[in-house]
């Protein structure tokens, strides 16, 4: 790891100003829990000139729920807090489950929701310094190489997948984030638009500007009859990255589905909504057979690579099981 400067930011404003000083070759980067940042620095993938510590900024670690406004999470709220917070557990169980099953207890204690959404892909080509220096065609390397954990959808331009698993649940809940730029300029961006297909040659995989801060995550209040479930399927249970993860949010009227959201992570460059599958659910009661059809529709159009076709059938299983779990929740 190379030497760098450290600054403790005291306010959003100050952090934004410091981040604005970032230049090519002398990047200034924000640090929240530091879980991803440190990994990238130790791996030689990122060598910041200056690190701006956000942890001292007041007012970014709140969890608020309001029946009209919904849920608001400060960017510095940790994953472990999200997994425990009663308001989240009771009303947004897919999110608390996603937080609880991310990473390890130690990582969850440090990792913040803001940093989690902004983390870089875990693609093992991306994480290896060598492939940043080697040049060449990043996509061809993955297509010809070890792509067992890569995207099975939309993989024509990049096969890397976004790493955040809470993002899958946030997408299903229709969450958005608040971004603050210079002069306090604030914009709200849906999670579905925040994330961009990962790219080895770009410094980030989101629409966040270099001098913007992610300050809040918001989820609209759930409608009456909302049921949800989340499942992360890893090779291991103790701690593992997913082969896929699925969040399902249903609004039920009796047993009949009025609205459905199915979000699937780790199968496409960004978490993906299974729109056709969702349509099958609306207006019908969920049963085994419908769940089977929905799951089939969810994986339709998959374009697996040389080594990851197995992910398609696993995804199909996980969608079916999670739809059923949500309906029973």
């Amino acid at each position, binding site marked *: 790891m190379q030497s760098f400067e450290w600054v403790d930011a005291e306010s959003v404003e100050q952090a934004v100003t410091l981040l604005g000083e970032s230049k090519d070759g002398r990047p200034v980067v924000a640090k929240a829990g530091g879980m991803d940042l440190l990994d990238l620095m130790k791996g030689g993938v990122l060598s910041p000139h200056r690190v701006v510590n956000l942890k001292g900024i007041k007012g970014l670690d709140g969890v608020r729920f309001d029946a009209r406004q919904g849920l608001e999470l400060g960017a510095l709220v940790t994953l472990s807090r999200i997994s425990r917070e009663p308001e989240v557990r009771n009303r947004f169980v897919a999110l608390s489950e996603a937080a609880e099953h991310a990473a390890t207890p130690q990582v969850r204690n440090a990792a913040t929701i803001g940093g989690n959404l902004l983390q870089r892909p875990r693609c093992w080509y991306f994480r290896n310094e060598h492939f940043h220096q080697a040049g060449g065609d990043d996509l061809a390397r993955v297509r010809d190489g070890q792509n067992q954990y890569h995207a099975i959808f939309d993989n024509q331009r990049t096969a890397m997948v976004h790493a955040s698993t809470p993002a899958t649940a946030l997408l299903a809940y229709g969450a958005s984030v608040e971004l603050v730029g210079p002069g306090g300029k604030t914009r709200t961006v849906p999670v579905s638009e925040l994330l961009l297909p990962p790219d080895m040659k770009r410094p980030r995989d989101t629409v966040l500007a270099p001098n913007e801060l992610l300050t809040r995550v918001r989820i609209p209040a759930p409608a009456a009859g909302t049921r949800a479930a989340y499942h992360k399927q890893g090779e291991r249970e*103790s701690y593992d990255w997913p082969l896929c993860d699925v969040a399902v949010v249903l609004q039920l009227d009796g047993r009949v589905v009025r609205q459905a959201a199915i979000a699937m992570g780790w199968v496409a460059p960004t978490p993906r909504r299974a729109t056709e599958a969702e349509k099958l659910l609306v207006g019908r009661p969920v049963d085994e057979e419908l769940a089977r059809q929905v799951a089939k529709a969810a994986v339709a159009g998959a374009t697996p690579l040389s080594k990851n076709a197995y992910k398609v059938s696993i995804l199909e299983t996980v969608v079916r099981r999670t739809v059923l779990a949500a309906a029973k929740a």
Partner: protein
Amino acid sequence: MQDVKDTSDTRGATTPADGQKTQEAGPAKPPPPNPGPARQQAMPYGIVGQRLEQVTRRVPVDEPPPLPENAKLKSIGKPVSRLDGIEKVTGRARYTFDVQLPGMLWGQRVLAPLPHARIKSIDTSAAERYPGVRAVHVMERLLSTAKLRDPKAEQGNRYPTVRYAGQPIAGVAADSPRAAEAAARLIKVEYEPLPHVTDLEEAMKENAPRVFPGPTEQPSTAGGGGAPPGLPQKGNVRGPDSKPLGMGPRGDVQRGFAESDVVIDVEYRTQVQTHVPMEPHGLVADWRDEGLTLYASTQYMGSVRDEAAEYFDLPKSKVRVICDYTGGGFGAKYGIGNFGLLAIHLSRKARAPVRMVLDRREEHVSGGNRPNSIQRLKLGAKKDGSLVAIQLKAWGSGGVAGGAGVGFCHSTLYECPNVQMEQYDVFTNAGPCAAFRAPGQVQGIFGLEQSIDELAERIGMDPLALRNKIDVSRTDDAVARAHERRVGAEKFGWSKRRPAGSDKGPIKRGVGFAQSQWLYLVHRNTGCEVRVLGDGSVEAFSGTQDIGTGTRTILAQVVAEELGLRPEDIGAHVGDSRYPPGPASGGSRVTSSLTPAARNAAYRCARDLASRLAPVFQASADDIVFADGKVMVKGKASSAMPFRDAVKKAGFNEIAHRAERRDDYEGYMAVTPEMGISRHGIGGVQFAEVAVDTETGIVKVERVLAVHDCGRPINPKLTESQIYGGVIQGVSYALYEERHLDAGSGHQLNANVDQYKIVGSRETPSIEVILLEQLGAQSSTDARGVAEPANVATAAAVANAFYNATGKRIRTLPMTPANVLAALRA
């Protein structure tokens, strides 16, 4: 295909008329054991609690009388907690990683980014000028690799050819780690890239790029591994080795298959597993005029000293190796390694101690691995289960090193008149393999034990009953396994086993069984010194090392037993090459080698002490007994005096005796300069229960029952701990671990502990251990080993349980969802 000319083969291989090479015989036939005066001694033999007989052995006269079974002992055989446990859990234990010496420099390696290349030039000038840099060294020789039989092929080359991405090229020593790292990046290496190949099957093709330009040799380390000398080599394919361990072939397999009622002909594949010890390889070298001191994370200080002496032309007496604790070793921590070579050169140049410790990435890439394999295994049998023919053809790649065989079980575990084996090493541009916890045998048993199960099913026989019929070699391990099958089946509930694929739902459960077989080895040159000081304190010294098995503790237990003391009363010292030579911590041989030497030395001290105490007690020395921390005259409880008080009364400064590990009383089947190989093996059987999610391909091992023998267990608690570790590592191998290389660049993609997947707490099954106490009447303690045997059967037992659960065979490791779903669809 152009044949690689095999010109410099001086090792006695001959070329018969048919052009086939034959290899020389295995290890030498040993001389009779223990020359010198001996007595005929009646000794207990058998499995304690089962049936003990008396046998008569020829025992050297100065060895103690035989020990009774553990139940009659006070210290040996008791579940004593590790004496250094508190040091370890409080962080006080000093591992090589922790060694900090005054003025110590930090070493950094320069690694090759290409998988195959000639080095045209190296410019170190910028690194040498970098602030804080004290020495730079460019490697002129490379260890841990196969060697060209005829070095002429690469003679003009100034530097070793790069044959894998991550191969060390040079090293830097600097005042701080950061300066060393920064300076290492300034070393400019100009490469001429050469074509490379990383995949086993690709490398076997005729037109594959050549990893070596000619035939090679790979001597084995003290930990095993390596490849037999003088084998033919075509392209990247070296072999066949048809006599692993000097055993087989026999009979005529073709005739055997013709006579068989059932033939099972299948292919198995296993992956590359890396060792991942908690503490990576590392060495701190301190070169001084008066001698070289090496702090090493090693499994064998002797190999560190010997290699340092050889490569730096030093008398062995000038090299001292210190190893207080080794943070794990599974076969790869032998010798000084390339990192050690660099550390010593740099220390000599800088005239300061240099610390060179691999990082996690290098540990995966160049620290050693268990080679992969493709095994074609053909079994022929009669309807009654008797085996008629076994034929094995196996290929494996240990990267740039040889030693990718799949063990010796095919010719030794089961009775079979016709056996043929061909094992090939295939070179690839990948990091070198090394011995790894029962090298070869883990891969071989994975295939063999599944095929035996398949045979049982085909002839409608219970898998255990079939083993009862064919596992009949009358060696101690076969005797142990017969007993283990019986007690294990009962404990596990084997009779409740259902037909394969019984569960209707997507989650299917099943049980399986497999057998273990490993060598019983003795480190021949093992000594131990025991001292009784004038104040009654006792110390024991052995130049062995503790890699986490609890060597200090068992050493103390054995000495304590002879002197009637508690293990914690004994100062047990290991980890310094100045102590009497100790065994390598490999080949499951520390306890089998060290404890008899320790007991012999303690016995001599006790006898010496008794004769000095005789006047104090006014009794004959023969009547002085040591028990419960006291000394007394036999049969006279009133004479009892605390040990320390008695010793003080004897009025001496110190009694010291050194004794050796004698040969096994029955002698060995074969010997090497360092090792005695018994005709008896070590057995063990394991039962596993799994749940397979047939929709996601997730396999969960829920329960393992491990029934093992290790001769006399000196410390059942530590033994069980070894068995837990063996099972856990076995599950990890069966289900998760796999090195992934990128074929295009030759780089390992998962050289970390994130994407290199190891079993975690939730994947650890519930493990139950049943431990036999088996007395073989071979040494003064009758201890054998268990570390490797505990790792041999697990993957096969899990695979057999997988079949019982699903009705499908899984012939490819690891059992990842991808491989499982493919197997279920087959």
